[in-house]
């Protein structure tokens, strides 16, 4: 299978955000790969391996859209085991979910993958849109928020379990399709390519970390830089513009209570919630 996987760089979610005068200052931010995209890379690797640590088949292409510096995070994906990268150079300010999906659509036209695998959302924008928009633009089937993906032996369809509000839904999609992955996708038996492994195949309960060997190998792998114009997108105007940022109302720490009795009394008499 040929799989296209997204890799977005995001500010480290653990660091404190600098807000001033309605603007966000990311100049000093440290960057990392969006966690859900790491899961997407792991998913693609599992779909292409003959079991854990087994031989790989097919090709995994990592795609990122952003400044040149995003190649750093792409190297991380290549060090995990992906084969090559495509970095579409664009200003972050010109990108919203719609623009990103349009760029990805052009990359899909060129690469013709059997599936596009994305994280279900980025942990900075939190929009949770790109995969769905991409599928809509391409006219492809979609399976979002995947907790498991089983590709059929003939490689023509996949059964995806999705954790929805009502429970767990099993959805079969024809390939090529757009798949977005949720947290559970990295559990041991969540991902299986029935063309490559038996039903009992399992991996570690986490995404893999780059080995030294992987990091060395990644240095030699290709990251091809392209411009949006080269992809045939002469104008790229975001449909959503961020006008400004504000800090959310802060919550003050309340009181410590000494006992369960005191807690219940306060909840009843003071807060009046029980």
């Amino acid at each position, binding site marked *: 299978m040929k799989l296209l996987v997204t890799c977005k760089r995001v500010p480290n979610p653990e660091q404190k955000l600098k807000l001033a005068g309605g603007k966000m200052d990311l100049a000093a931010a440290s960057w990392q790969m969006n966690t859900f995209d790491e899961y997407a890379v792991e998913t693609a690797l599992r779909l292409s391996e003959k079991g854990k640590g087994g031989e790989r088949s097919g090709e995994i292409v990592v795609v990122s859209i952003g400044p040149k510096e995003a190649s750093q995070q792409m190297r991380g994906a290549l060090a995990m085991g992906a084969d090559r990268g495509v970095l579409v150079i664009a200003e972050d300010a010109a990108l919203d979910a719609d623009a990103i999906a349009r760029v990805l659509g052009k990359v899909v036209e060129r690469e013709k993958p059997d599936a596009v695998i994305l994280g279900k959302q980025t*942990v900075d924008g939190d929009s*949770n849109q790109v995969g769905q928009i991409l599928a809509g633009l391409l006219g492809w089937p*979609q399976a979002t*928020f995947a907790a498991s993906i089983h590709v059929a032996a003939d490689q023509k369809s996949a059964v995806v379990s999705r954790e929805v509000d*009502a429970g767990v839904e099993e959805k079969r999609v024809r390939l090529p399709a757009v798949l977005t992955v949720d947290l559970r996708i990295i559990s041991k038996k969540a991902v299986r390519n029935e063309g490559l492994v038996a039903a009992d195949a399992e991996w570690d309960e986490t995404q893999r970390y780059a080995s030294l060997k992987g990091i060395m190998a990644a240095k030699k792998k290709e990251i091809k830089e392209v411009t949006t114009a080269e992809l045939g997108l002469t104008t790229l105007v975001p449909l959503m513009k961020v006008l400004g940022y504000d800090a*959310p109302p802060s919550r003050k720490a309340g*009181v410590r209570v000494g006992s369960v009795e005191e807690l219940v009394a306060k909840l009843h008499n003071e807060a009046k919630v029980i």
Partner: protein
Amino acid sequence: MAAGTVVVFCEISGAAIRSSSLNAIAAAQALAARQGQGPGQGQGPGQGQGDAQPHAAVVAVVIGSGVGGAAARDVARYVGRVIAYDDPRLGSPLAETYAPLLAAAVKAVGGTALLGTATSTGKDVLPRAAALLGAGMASDIIRVDGPNRFRRPAYAGNVLEDVELASAIVVASVRQTAFPQAAAAATAGVVEPGTVGSVETLGSEILSLQATKSARPELGEAKVVVSGGRGMRAGENFKILEELTDLMGGALGASRAACDAGMVPNDLQVGQTGKVVAPQLYIAVAISGAIQHLAGMKGSKVIVAINKDGDAPIFQVADYGLVTTWETAIPALIAEVKKLKATSG
């Protein structure tokens, strides 16, 4: 912007409107007002005091199999006009089939906006519909600031973004907890069938839905939420939290750490990547309070934290903090709440 028509995607539960869709209707009404035709700034039919059609600019769309009757009429209690796409081929909520119908509905009524609640279905379907409409979309809006301006959280709720959509049609998913529930109008609206035409599944099919069986209220709608974290150590230890939850008539939640560890199903997850809740009372048990968890519960009215680690960040947002183990606190809490119930009848 010219006076518009706001289309709101309403989900159906049984033969009635899904409760979370009432919040989307309220948001649609707020947007309709901003677009110059709804209550408050009426210029079209529907302005004026005690008018029979107070929500003229809001059109609801329902999609499904067998939804054209009682279910659609239930939705019509809240809006002036309901378009029902009722067809046996639409029994399962497939983004592939629902998104084109939403787009068609927007075009059919000359819509300027499409809204829906950020439920699992809304999150799946709305962006795809936006793509078909060439529309910009704002996810998880918490406030309507103008005909095409919204406020929404980002960065796990650590930042609020004010966004503007530049497209002729705007799409937004609505954070349920940030809007009130729409009230029924004095007069019910009209229901009309939508033209379904060909239904293109693109080969997609829902094979099964393993429904979570629970007598408890939905997490997003419960007045009380009791959540457990990694400190619960094992799934079986959640039983005692369930007892407390049921005693208080609440819903059970969990932190991502507890879900990741496989203690409880992921649909209980409260946080940035799970559900966002804002109950009257949120009880966090053995939850440290990672940023991504706080993003899902910071809007609760009263927060109680029970954790043996007095330095846990959860205490920084808790109204009432109790530093102790859950093994000590929860049985005592159950006993105290029972006592309280007995005395207050």
